[in-house]
């Protein structure tokens, strides 16, 4: 906070150096600081990418992308210049079975990189893969690591020693369970970083993070929706608040295969009895907008509106139930034990009572919750009724629809939604390069989901960032920080 140091809150602990083991944004937070990629996201409010290591990069055919690297981009610790061999090594290793890469699906139909010169190469895909520009290259899987150093270490970047880096910062130490301490990388080939030291501090609890910000112990943190209005109305001295629409999608899912919900009218009645505006007010403090589907505004495939309006229609719900010959409906919802979701469930409970539906709330901690719909873990997935979930998202619609194909039943498709048309569209949209066509296909897919009566979309939520005046943060459009681009004010 003294101008040369930057403290950024991480809500979980990034815990790997090696992209093979990466599981999500927290690693990206770290990799962004210490590694580079061919292309990277542009900070700001629009989704776009820009060259990073690449001097030039272009789609040469539906299944090939040619790139040339900038000259003189150096590895730390005397490992020399970054070459096309490094790019090939970094991307190809995800495809090797034994490497157990956890982010392999991000690469889609990618097969391999062909090295055509010391600084040039071609990326090959089996079939056209649209998300390669929005996910594969600028996100975790596109991270370039040092081939020589990694091979010397036995093919994997171990946690034993700080890795060879290429980004603006390098690792000084990892205090397990507490923080990562990064130093400015003096061997960085780009414009030197603004901060001598960056700490990525693990603060799980939101209230604690806010307090830490207030006490000056962190410079940048996301805060919960409850505090947005208060801090927005009168921010503490030396502090700014910025609210971004987020990409997540929260929804109430309904297991359409559950015999209880065999009658479509029952499903629809339930959907009509969920009042999204009340939920926005009670659980999201009116800072987030109701969602129209699983794809957020600003992305390809975003729907302008839902089929069933967000406001509940209890009379209609009652009518539908009567038609189905049901007097009182007892149903259960499984939710994760975070405040927002338990609040949502309580509001739903109160609202649904008005339509004669008794909602029982079952709360689970993470471990138990996330395996509820997983077939490998017992029979619970078949008996599921309602669930309240939030999935995270990347800026490509493919990433959202992927979980709802028939194949995912027993894994992530807890609604057991199964539609041939949907599966087909998902497959085709993957290789569709015309944005307008893609847009239409994804909109249709969300209509299909909604029509099944298995989904009530709630919101994409917001990311509210609280930060010190002394820094200029850089974030993606969805508000997630790109620490490598943070500057001093």
């Amino acid at each position, binding site marked *: 906070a003294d101008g040369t140091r930057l403290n950024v809150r991480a809500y979980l602990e990034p815990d790997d150096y090696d992209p093979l083991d990466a599981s999500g944004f927290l690693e990206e937070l770290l990799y962004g600081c210490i590694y580079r990629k061919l292309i990277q996201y542009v900070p700001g409010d629009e989704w776009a990418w820009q060259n990073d290591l690449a001097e030039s990069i272009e789609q040469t055919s539906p299944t090939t992308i040619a790139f040339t690297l900038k000259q003189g981009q150096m590895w730390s610790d005397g490992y020399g210049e970054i070459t096309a061999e490094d790019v090939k090594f970094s991307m190809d290793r995800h495809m090797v079975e034994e490497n157990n890469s956890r982010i392999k699906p991000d690469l889609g139909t990618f097969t391999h990189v062909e090295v055509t010169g010391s600084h040039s190469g071609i990326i090959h895909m089996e079939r056209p893969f649209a998300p390669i520009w929005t996910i594969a290259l600028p996100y975790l899987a596109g991270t370039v690591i040092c081939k020589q150093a990694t091979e010397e270490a036995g093919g994997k970047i171990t946690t034993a020693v700080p890795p060879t880096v290429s980004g603006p910062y390098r690792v000084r130490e990892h205090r397990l369970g507490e923080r990562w301490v990064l130093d400015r990388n003096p061997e960085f080939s780009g414009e030197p970083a603004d901060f001598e030291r960056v700490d990525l501090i693990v603060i799980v609890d939101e209230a604690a993070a806010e307090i830490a910000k207030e006490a000056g112990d962190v410079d940048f943190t996301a805060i919960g929706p409850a505090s947005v209005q*208060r801090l927005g109305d009168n921010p503490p001295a030396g502090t700014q608040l910025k609210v971004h629409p987020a990409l997540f999608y929260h929804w109430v899912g309904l297991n359409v295969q559950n015999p209880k919900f065999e009658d479509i009218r029952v499903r629809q009645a339930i959907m009509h009895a969920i009042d999204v505006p009340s939920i926005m007010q*009670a659980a999201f403090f009116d800072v987030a907008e109701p969602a129209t589907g699983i794809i957020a505004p600003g992305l390809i495939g975003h729907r302008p509106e839902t089929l069933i309006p967000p406001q509940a229609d209890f009379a209609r719900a009652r009518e539908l139930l009567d038609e189905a010959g049901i007097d009182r409906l007892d149903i259960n919802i499984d939710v994760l034990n975070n405040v927002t979701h338990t609040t949502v469930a309580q509001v739903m409970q*109160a609202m649904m009572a008005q339509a004669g539906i008794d909602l029982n*709330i*079952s*709360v689970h*901690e993470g471990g138990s919750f996330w395996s509820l719909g997983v077939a490998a873990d017992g029979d619970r997935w078949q008996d599921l009724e309602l669930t309240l979930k939030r999935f995270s998202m990347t800026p490509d619609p493919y990433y959202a629809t992927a979980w709802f194909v028939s194949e995912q039943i027993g894994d992530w498709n807890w609604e057991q939604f199964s539609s041939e048309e949907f599966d087909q569209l998902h497959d085709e949209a993957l290789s569709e390069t015309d944005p307008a066509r893609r847009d239409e296909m994804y909109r249709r897919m969300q209509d299909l989901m909604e029509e099944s009566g298995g989904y009530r979309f709630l919101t994409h939520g917001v990311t509210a960032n609280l930060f010190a005046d002394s820094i200029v943060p850089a974030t993606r459009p969805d508000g997630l920080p790109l620490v490598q681009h943070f500057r001093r004010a």
Partner: protein
Amino acid sequence: MTAFRHTLTGRLLADPLAVVAMLIIAGMVMVALLADVISPHDYSAMNLVDRFSPPSATYWLGTDNLGRDTFSRLAQGSRIALYVALTAVTISGAIGLVLGMIAGFGPRWLDNSLLFIFDTARAYPTIILALALAALLPRGLSTVVIVVVITSFSEYGRVVRTQTLSLKNAEFILAERAMGASFGRIVFHHILPNVLGPFFILAAMNLPVVITIEAGMSFLGIGVPPGTPSWGATLKDGFDYIRTTPWIILAGGLPLILVTLGFTFLGEALRDQLDPKLRKGR
């Protein structure tokens, strides 16, 4: 027996702290019994317009994030607190009593094994055990009760065992044996009545601890189901919204502190009065 009771109550009434303690406990029992009558609002009624209201004439202790009346919730919560505390303490006490007596009376190997079990049960940190069990069991009051029972029966067991052991070799037990008294008679007529004193003291002192454990579990999101008006849930809400509405946590803490004061002082007063060593004065 009547003479003894009479003097015990009399003696308790002479101790100002004990009187305060009994008043608090009586007050809490009244509130629990009359929760529906004295609550100005329906404890579960949401009123989003009035949420986060500060204490006022309408909402004596303010409202929470869903606009529910905190006072009514706390009043209702006293039932839960009493229910959880009493069930948990009764069950763990009963288990502890039986095992403790068996350990005290049994052969050495049995005593050693039971002691070992007590020590093992004691080795689990409560909250950490709660975490593990919360994953196994459905959420609810019964889980809280089970956690408390598992972690605290050993305490009763130890106390009862120690007590039984010392009684077992007491002269008056030998005297009973010398007269030919049967085992059952010795246990039920002579040991049990003497074990119950320290046992009840411990139970009184443990009641508020149970309520605190419930609060801690609610904080970690493994306590009672959402919507349940337990004190712990109110504290947890207060914690989440402390920057917006600092009074929720204070309101939630108040009954907890009162009850702890009540039961602890009652327990201590009982101990002072029942323990002949302390009673003697110096």
